[in-house]
Structure formats: structure tokens, C-alpha cells
């Protein structure tokens, strides 16, 4: 990203952390309890995260041993979901342990003078408590999503006894109650995490890729290319998105892939404008002109020089975009256009449960809260990243 040169008396703005205490005996401790040595030296964010992941995953392993074992046995006919969960479990445990062990043994950098902007940004980010909270939240969400088969107490799509187990309020048997099909809401919320997170992630992946490419091309080539692309952007922006969505869904069978594709293909305009703006200003900067003078090909300049430098704002936009997309999917569900049942997406669950808000508040409240906190986490991280990546806003 474009970095300003610290101007004037930069004393107030630039950080020069002093030496950290060396962690003594850290390795030993970390081997038993990853995260603990970091906690001891006051690195609560990193320490707690590692500890949480370690303890949490161990708990899953112990408490849900039967499921885990079933996933391990080749002959058990475990599904792909189960295998993914198993890999996540093992990898998560390993990652927490290895990271903590290596980190604890490291002598901390004495000075951060001259470190890259990314490291500075990372430090700025890690000082933003809300943002760190969001990041930990996202980590937990992804773990929950991937481990859903081990965590969920019931099969999310298995119908219970329709006459006796329907719309049961939260209880010990069903922590978050049951829905109108007597399905366990907790299990559905857990599995729903995968759907909602994938929708957000993949759709934004698509839109950011398109947006960055088009924006870079428009900004770099300028003239008529820019004009044409920007007119297209104007058109897409002024085109009522919902009309397109409904028509596309009418045209094809509504499926999760269709939803993802449509959401991805309609949201790239923001990124395009953003990237174009950045590229327009970068284009005039010395290093790009130097690259041009050195005779690099245009593609090379775009991909190796321009794009990496606009990555910061794009990452911010993408993080915020994931949140927005999850909300958008929920909103589409309200119109009956979201992910279709029986797939348990949070949006569909909230939308389906809304008419029973008074009779069975748990139906829409829990998936609703899941959406709010997930989106909140992404937004906190996005906001934190923006503050962190923008040197002007750093502390």
C-alpha cells in the first residue's frame, strides 16, 4: 500500500516499542499448555487465542470422542463433512501447539525500527481491542463451522417427532429449542455457520477478484478503457440489484451456488471504484513510472506493482464485504430468495422463524444473533484493519 513518509515531528505518531522480556522456560510451559507463556508476558490476545483453541479443541476431542473416532475409522462411511472436521481438529491442535512452542522460544525483537508497514499495521491492529475480539470471533466461527459434525448434538436435517417435539422451547435436551419440524435449532445454527461463512467468503472472493482486476485495468490504462469500464460500473450500480437477483433466480433453479454467484457478480463495483482510484494516484508515483521506464510489460506492472500496493484497502473492503454479504443473503431469504431449505442457512432460519417470533422466539432469535455477531466480528476486523492500514489513523 502507499505509505506516507513520516513528516515533520513524527514523535507523536510513530511507535518504537522497547525490548520485551525474554520468555524464560516458555517452551516447557508451552508444551503443556500452549498460550500460557504468552499470557505470562502479558500478550493476552495471542495467549488467550492459543489457549482457547487448544483447550476448546481438546474438549471436543474428549467429549465427542465417539464422533471423532467414527470419523477416523475408514470403514465407518464417514462423510466428507466428518473428514473435514477431523482434519480441522487435528490441524487446529497442532497449530496451537507448534505456534506457542516456537513463539515461546523466540527472543523478542528488540526494536521495531525499520520494520515493514505490514508489521506496523499488525501491531496497530493488535492494540485495537475490539478488532482483536472480532478476529478471535472469526477464528472461533470458522472452527465451529468446520467442526460442526462433532459439535452439533443432532442431525440438523433429521425430522423429529412432529407431534411431540415440535417447537419445544430451549431445554437441556435441545439447548436452543426445536423448530416446526422438531429439528434441533442448535445443530442447525452450527451447520448454518458453514453456509453463511462460505457464502460470504466465496461471493466476496469473486467480487473482489473481478473488482480488483477491472479497477486496476481501468485505472492503469485510463482513456477510453477507463471510460467504458466506468460507464459499465455506473450501469451496474444504477441497475436495481434485486430485480436482477429475482430474475436470475426465476430463470434458474435457486441453489446455493446460484446465490453465491449472483451475490459475487453484483457486488464488485465498489472494489472497482476503490482500486481504480488508488491506481490512478499510484500511476503517477515514482516507482510505477520507474517500472514503466525499465520496460516492464503492462501486465507485469499491473500485477506485480500496482495490485500489491492497493491490497490494503481491498482487504479492508473485502472483510467488510463478507459481513455485508451475509446480511444480504439473510435479507434475500426474507423475500424467499435466499438459500433454499432444507439447507440450514442462518438467513433462511431467521426468515422462516419470523412469523413465529411471538410463539417461538428461539427460532429466529438464535440464528439472528449468530448473523449479528458474525457480521459484527467481520466489521470489527475490517474497521480495525482500516485503522491499522491507514497510518494517518494510527495511534
Amino acid at each position: 500500500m502507499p505509505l506516507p513518509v513520516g513528516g515533520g515531528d513524527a514523535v507523536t505518531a510513530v511507535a518504537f516499542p522497547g525490548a520485551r522480556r525474554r520468555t524464560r522456560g516458555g517452551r516447557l510451559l508451552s508444551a503443556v499448555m500452549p498460550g500460557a507463556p504468552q499470557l505470562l508476558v502479558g500478550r493476552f490476545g495471542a495467549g488467550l487465542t492459543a489457549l482457547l483453541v487448544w483447550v476448546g479443541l481438546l474438549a471436543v476431542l474428549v467429549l465427542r470422542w465417539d464422533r471423532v473416532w467414527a470419523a477416523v475409522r475408514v470403514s465407518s462411511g464417514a462423510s466428507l463433512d466428518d473428514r473435514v472436521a477431523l482434519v480441522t481438529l487435528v490441524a487446529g491442535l497442532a497449530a496451537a501447539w507448534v505456534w506457542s512452542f516456537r513463539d515461546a522460544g523466540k527472543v523478542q525483537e528488540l526494536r521495531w525500527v525499520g520494520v515493514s508497514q505490514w508489521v506496523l499495521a499488525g501491531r496497530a491492529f493488535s492494540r485495537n481491542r475490539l478488532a482483536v475480539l472480532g478476529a478471535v470471533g472469526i477464528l472461533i466461527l470458522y472452527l465451529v463451522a468446520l467442526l460442526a459434525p462433532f459439535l452439533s448434538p443432532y442431525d440438523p436435517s433429521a425430522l423429529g417427532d412432529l407431534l411431540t417435539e415440535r417447537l419445544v422451547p430451549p431445554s437441556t435436551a435441545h439447548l436452543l429449542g426445536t423448530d416446526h419440524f422438531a429439528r434441533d435449532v442448535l445443530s442447525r445454527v452450527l451447520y448454518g455457520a458453514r453456509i453463511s461463512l462460505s457464502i460470504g467468503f466465496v461471493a466476496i472472493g469473486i467480487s473482489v477478484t473481478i473488482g480488483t482486476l477491472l479497477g486496476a485495468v481501468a485505472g492503469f490504462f485510463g482513456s477510453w478503457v477507463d471510460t467504458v469500464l466506468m460507464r459499465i460500473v455506473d450501469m451496474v450500480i444504477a441497475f436495481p440489484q434485486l430485480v436482477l437477483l429475482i430474475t436470475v433466480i426465476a430463470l434458474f433453479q435457486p441453489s446455493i451456488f446460484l446465490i453465491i454467484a449472483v451475490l459475487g457478480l453484483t457486488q464488485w463495483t465498489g472494489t472497482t471504484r476503490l482500486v481504480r482510484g488508488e491506481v490512478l494516484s499510484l500511476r503517477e508515483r515514482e516507482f510505477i513510472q520507474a517500472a514503466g521506464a525499465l520496460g516492464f510489460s503492462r501486465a507485469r506492472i499491473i500485477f506485480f506493482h500496482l495490485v500489491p500496493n492497493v491490497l490494503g484497502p481491498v482487504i479492508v473492503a473485502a472483510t467488510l464485504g463478507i459481513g455485508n454479504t451475509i446480511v444480504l443473503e439473510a435479507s434475500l431469504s426474507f423475500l424467499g430468495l435466499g438459500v433454499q431449505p432444507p439447507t440450514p442457512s442462518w438467513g433462511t432460519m431467521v426468515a422462516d422463524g419470523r412469523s413465529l417470533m411471538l410463539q417461538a422466539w428461539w427460532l429466529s432469535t438464535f440464528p439472528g444473533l449468530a448473523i449479528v455477531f458474525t457480521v459484527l466480528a467481520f466489521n470489527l476486523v475490517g474497521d480495525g484493519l482500516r485503522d491499522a492500514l491507514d497510518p494517518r489513523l494510527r495511534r
Partner: protein
Amino acid sequence: MMTTRARIVLGLTVVAAACGRDYADGGAAAVGVETFCADVAPHVDAFMARMEQEHSVTDSARYGGTVVVASIGDMVDGMNHFVSSDYTASQNQQFVNLMSLIRYDASIQPQPYLAESWEVDDPTHPSTITFHLRRDVYWHDGVRTDANDVAFTYRVVTDPETAYPNAAFWDHYVGGAEGIEVVDSFTVRVRLSPHAEYLDPWTGVSIMPRHLLEGVPVSQLKQHPYGTQCPVGNGPFVFVEHRPQESWTFKTNPAFPTDLGGRPYVDRYVYRVIPEQATLLTDLLTENIDVYLAPRADQVPEIIRSEDLDLLRSVSRSYTLVAWNARRPQLADARVRRAMTLGTNRHEIVEAQLRGYGVVANSGVPPFHWAYDPTLADSVRYDPAEARRLLEEAGWIDRDGDGVRENAEGAPLAFTLKYNQGNQYRQDIAEIMQAQLGQIGVKVQPQVMEFGTMIAQLSGEERDFDATVVGWVTEFKLDDVDLFHSSRIDQPYAFSGTRNAQMDRLLDTLQLVVDRQAAIPLWKEYQQLLLREQPYTYFYFPERLNGINKRVRGVTMDARGEWVNIKDWWIPRDKRRAVQRAAAR
């Protein structure tokens, strides 16, 4: 029983004597489309002001107040009966703004309404009906309703160019000008060929004002401002205002014939559109509306729990079903289709989904109907064992042990079950069928479709579907010819595409049997045949549930509809909004 019933013709009331109106230019057709509303409104206002004076209400114990009825959809077709195909709009035409010649009573017997009496030339073989109209019914602009209005209405609805949605009603009538004869100002005679329930169309067709609409090309009627911007009816309520997607407001018609009960009790009736059911319930609970039409069964406990609210239950004419596309090889065998019905626990679905507010259906004949055969009610119950036996008998056996049955060629017994977006009930049925039929070795793939797309696929030539969850609303005059008669197999509504000679014969005969008693055994045979053939798996007739605030008194809702006695609804004085608002000051 549906034969002529003479009625004593009452003398003209004061109202009738006092009014009458001409347009200055004398010609109704001269009213231009562009200025139509502006031209009509002053006449309505003037006439109503005069009537209000002449029929001022002194006793305000029952008269007064505003009743608010709300539902999720707008009456987009408005009060123009010629283009109306929507249930709510038709109801409001029949019972609120317009009048039909005759109406049904609670036991579905025709009763006089705009027509005070009628005669049939031959009760067992009717070829003409003579209607005698009331002489005290006025259009809201002061013009008297007479035989010419009836003749005009008849000519328009039987004119193919109108594209009258219920044109099929008149199949056995002689259409156009030859079919109807204006005997005198208050007598019309129509010609028909004898057929079953021949009076039924007259309960459904609302008479429209000739003096306002004659001369408008019939193909242009749909776009005429009459329907949605300034309808001028002759019914108990006078149109006041229509805000698209928001509300219809009607006020009491003081000139409504005393004989028919006179002016309605409530001063104003507002129909509100609130597209969200959760909001509707809140509106009802906070007394923002008085009647919530058709809440979800799951919302009913909240209505029952509230001290201020009542739940009105009535039988309905709509039913939910799964239509099997018998053109598909795996669904061609009636035994397979019957196995599907046997393998689905419909009673449980009624209990769970409708909370018991409904009855399991075995045919399209509603349980309240005289043609209904109660002995068949429980003849098909959930019986997975029998279902498995039938499937095996039909050659569908799980040959490869994957849990899904195959036929001798190895084709699996699998189909997709389409349902439209945004209908929770149908979605639920699809999912439950998937689960329950899965247990008897049938693979069901539920598939949601956008409504328009699905309809296009169901009725298109390709019939691009295996099975679908849909619903029908029957008329009081039952007629399944379009659904099951083999002559209609290429018509849009022949979803199942079954051919059965006995079915054809029964459907043909039933259309023409005039006497209900003679028809009953035939209907029984027909219902038994449906049980055997299973072109559809009939699910249930849900009850119509309506949440209503207790302050609205005297409400009757039954199979005929929700608005059937709206003119008799009343609100005690201290419960009226304006009174409460004034008291709050």
C-alpha cells in the same frame, strides 16, 4: 329446491321514489376515460350527501365506527368484476361494493339478492331463467340498477374478447346478446342448456353499471379507471379511496335497500395491505387492525391467548395436494401413486402443520359440500407396510441395497418434487414427503421454484416436472373436467395427465345432472375412483382461520367467505376509535 321462489314485491321505498339521476349530456358512454373519475365523483358525493340526510341514523348504539380488515395482499383487480380473478377482490365485489343477482345462504342454497325472485321454465330441464330485479337498488351515483345493467354485464362476461377469467361458468349458457333478453326494466330472461348447478354462475357474477362502462371496448376494460380508482357500485358500501399496496376505504351506503337490512352498521370499512405476517399479528394484538385474515396456524395460540381477540374458524374451499405427472414412467402406475399416498402420514401433517385446523382430503370435494362422501373420510390412512407391498407388486424392489427401489430395468424410483418459493406449507410438505417416502424406498428430491417459472413448467407443453405441491380453490359448483378429463389432456391444467374412461364418463355426466339428489351417488363413485386412480395425493382442506378483535360484533365467516355479512358487523359505541381517541384527550 333451486326452483322458482316467488317473492312478494314490496312497494317502492321512499329512497327509490326520491332518486334518479341523469348525466346532463344524457349519454353514459359519453363519459371519457381520462376524465372518468372527475366526472363521476361529484355525482356520487351529491347522491350520498342527499341519502345521508334522508336516512340519518338516530340510534347510534350499533351504527358508527370503522372496521379495519387486513391481509397480506392488495386487491389488485379492484372492483371491476369483468377482469377479476382474485379471491379477495371477488369477495369485496360480491359483498361490499357490488351485488350479485342471487347469493348462497349458509347451507349453500341460492337466495334472492339483487334479484328478488326468479322462475325456471322447467325445473328438471331448465332452458330459460327469468329474474325479477329489485327496484330499490341504486348505483352510488344515483342511477337505478335495472335489467339493462344485468344484460350488459351478461354480454360482457360472455364476450370472448373480454377475457373474463371465469368464462367457463357460462359454458352451458347461450352467450352474447341472444342469450339474454330484457323483458322489462326489472326483468331479464337468460337462455341456457340444462346442466348441473345452473344457478351457480349468478351467485358469482357481480352486476356492473352499464351507464358508466357501456361503450368502452371490452378488451380495454381492464385498464379502465373504474376498477381501481373510482368504482361506482350498488352494494352496501361506497368506494372512498384506494391507495395501491396500502388500503381500500369504503363508507356506508345509506341508500342500501331496507329490505336487505338497510345501511351497514359500520360507517367505514377499511381493507389494509400488510405484506408481513409477523407484523399483521402485531397489528392485531395492538388493535391497529380489527381482523387479520388467514393467519398461520402457528400464530393461532397467540390469538387465542389474547383476551381481546377471537379466533373465527370456517371451512374452506381450498385444498393442498401433490400432483403426480403420470406421463413419467415411474409415476404412470396407479399403484405407485397410491403407495405414495399411503406412505405419507397426512394426518400427522395436519396435526403438526395446521395444528389440527384442517381435515385430510381424499378428493377435491370439500367436507361441507353436499356432494362430499363422509364414508370415505378415513379410508386411506398412513400405512407404510401396504405402501411397500403395492410398490413390490408394481415391480419396484430395492435390488442393489442402496435403500432406493428399482424396477426390472434398474431405473430407481426417484422423482423431484417441485414447490414454489415463499410458501412455507408447501415447503414443509415437500420436506416431510422426502423423509417419509424415503423410509419406503422412494427417493424424493424437493426442489424450490420461483412461482412464475414453476407454473410455466407445470402448464407448458413439456410438462417439465415429476411431481409438484400445489393448491386449488374449488367453486361451489364442483367441476374437475379441466383437471382430469382426457379431452383436456393438452390443456394447461391437466397436470397429472391421467386417462381413464370411467373418469371421463363420470365427469361428463356430472356436468349435466340437474338434480342434486341424483348427483350424490355419482359424486360418491367419482370420489372412490379418485382414491383408486390417485392422480393427486390430496393432502388437506385447511380451515380458514381469522383473528378478530372482540369489539367487532356480529361477524359471520363461513364457506361463502369472510365478507359475507360485513354489513351486519357492528362495534359498540365505547369501543370505536374516534370515541376512544376523544376520551383519551
